[in-house]
């Protein structure tokens, strides 16, 4: 737009928009908690409401993602590799996508969670959302990392946050095994197709935490030099 060579030297920083995107993606994922509460209560009107909210947030995250990509032309010189940044963006987006998948499938099949499984699965969902929140916390440090010019101290702070994120993800792995084991004990008394899909949902809840952890890994990669 500007013809002044000095003014046009300054590109739009992708850091702020990246943070907005992860915030939106996390907001979508964090709706899984009220969603599962509604599913357990078998309040299908509310389930649909939350699902729609999640779908809306996922779409907004998509829009933000496209916006970041458009403003990252190859001619932009960034303090981090452009490809790493774009990969991080795509991993962030996948958190929202998986959360939306879970909500869509459960609403579509009106899935009921067997009672012995309920508290366990609620804790599992909560822990996965915790992972996504920790990813958001780490990403929110990105502007300060830039402010310090990728100083060691700030990078170490973020690395510590990523370690916490990994711990949370380990928790979810452990919980996932436990939930599956419990379902295995119940499965012969349940309709087989429902059980198949329950296994899928359990896997997908684990995916949310997995993908949040991958945000951390990508972020670590971004900072390493």
């Amino acid at each position: 737009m500007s013809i002044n060579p000095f003014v046009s030297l300054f590109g739009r920083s992708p850091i702020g928009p990246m943070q907005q995107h992860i915030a939106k993606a996390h907001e979508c994922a964090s709706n899984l908690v009220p969603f599962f509460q509604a599913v357990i209560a078998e309040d299908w009107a509310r389930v649909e409401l939350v699902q729609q909210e999640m779908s809306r947030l996922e779409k907004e995250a998509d829009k933000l993602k496209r916006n970041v990509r458009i403003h990252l032309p190859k001619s932009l010189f960034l303090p981090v590799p452009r490809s790493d940044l774009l990969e991080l963006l795509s991993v962030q987006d996948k958190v929202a996508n998986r959360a939306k998948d879970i909500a869509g499938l459960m609403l579509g099949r009106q899935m009921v969670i067997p009672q012995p499984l309920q508290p366990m699965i609620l804790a599992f969902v909560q822990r996965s959302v915790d992972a996504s929140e920790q990813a958001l916390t780490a990403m929110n440090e990105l502007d300060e990392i830039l402010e310090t010019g990728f100083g060691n101290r700030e990078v170490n702070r973020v690395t510590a946050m990523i370690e916490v994120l990994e711990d949370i993800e380990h928790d979810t792995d452990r919980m996932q095994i436990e939930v599956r084991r419990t379902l295995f004990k119940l499965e012969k008394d349940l309709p087989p197709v429902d059980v198949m899909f329950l296994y899928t949902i359990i896997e997908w809840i684990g995916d949310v935490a997995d993908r949040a952890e991958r945000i951390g890994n990508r972020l670590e990669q971004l900072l390493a030099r």
Partner: protein
Amino acid sequence: MSLLTDYGLILLVLACLFGFFMAWGVGANDVANAMGTSVGSRALTIKQAIVVAMVFEFCGAYLAGGEVTETIKNGIVDIDVMTADLLVLGMMSALLASGTWLLIATNKGWPVSTTHTIIGAVVGFAAFGVSFDAVHWSAILPIMASWVVTPFLSGVLAFGLFVSVQKLIINTDHPFENAKRYVPFYMFLTGFMVALMTISKGLKHVGLNINSEQSFLLAIGVGILVMLLGIFLLRRVQIAPDANRSTYFASVEKVFATLMIFTACSMAFAHGANDVANAVGPLAAIAGVIQNNGVAELGTKSAVPAWVLLLGAVGIVIGLATYGYKVIATVGRGITELTPSRGFAAELATASTVVGASAIGLPVSTTHTLVGAVLGIGLARGISALNLRVIGSIFMSWAITLPAGAFLAIVFFSILKLIFL
């Protein structure tokens, strides 16, 4: 000799008018980039920036503008090859050509450099209007080389400055305390650098002759004065006791914002010292010849008259006051990604490079030097996004501006010859 005896006064008045107009243009447009950095990083308000620019552009132009003006006056064309008439008309057409070209370019929105236009115009009229040997080609080479070297050099300087800031201040346990401890040294550096170049090179025409040892000591004295003033100003900057991490860094940036007041002054000074010549260099040549009654050799050998620099300095200040403040505001709004800890490094690196170039009489582009400095900080991972296409546009501006200035100068030269000779 009839031309100069008959029309001498008219030509001189015309040259003054054109020179003044060019100086106005420098003040109206070029100063904005030099000051926009400080406005964009909110170290200075627009009003403060205007005041700083007026005072220090004036000082730079008047006190340190002599060497570059000298280069344009008689460093480029070979006076032995042409008559005094041709020199006067040629310099006149160079002024007209660059004025016209800058008007066209500004209207069309092309990024051009005043420096490159005027050099192209002077070389153009001499080489193609008079004879190919009328140009000191051996003097052109260092000038052209300096256009590549200065952005590179200021980039390296800015890189070094920013890395030192990271090591000493930002990446430590107590950035705020360290900022207060080390920032005065950068202030000293700023004052010392500007004073040294000015005292050793610029004060001759003001009537002061100081040897190099004295000027070195004097520069240290100025540096210390600047540092003391800085320490006094820094006492006002305090950190809020309930500061969290982000407001903490904001306080650190406030320390750098104080430093930036000084680097902004040095930047305006450097810009005035180098760019005033673009406006009054040809005028100085014309004035020299006419005042020595058409004896070109005498005209070129005499020093740049102080009133010529004064005219340029006043022109720049009026340009700033009448139009420049708008451009400064626009540029400032365009640069918001630059924080004071980066902005100061860019300004100090650019000012040092440009003041250095001014001291040895090289006409360089302040904007390009500043771009080089910002890229240097970018390489040190200090800026979130830089648009590399600008480098291409800078090369384009060289490729277009030099021939355009030359071509227009040849056209005006032919017309003036038809009218007067």
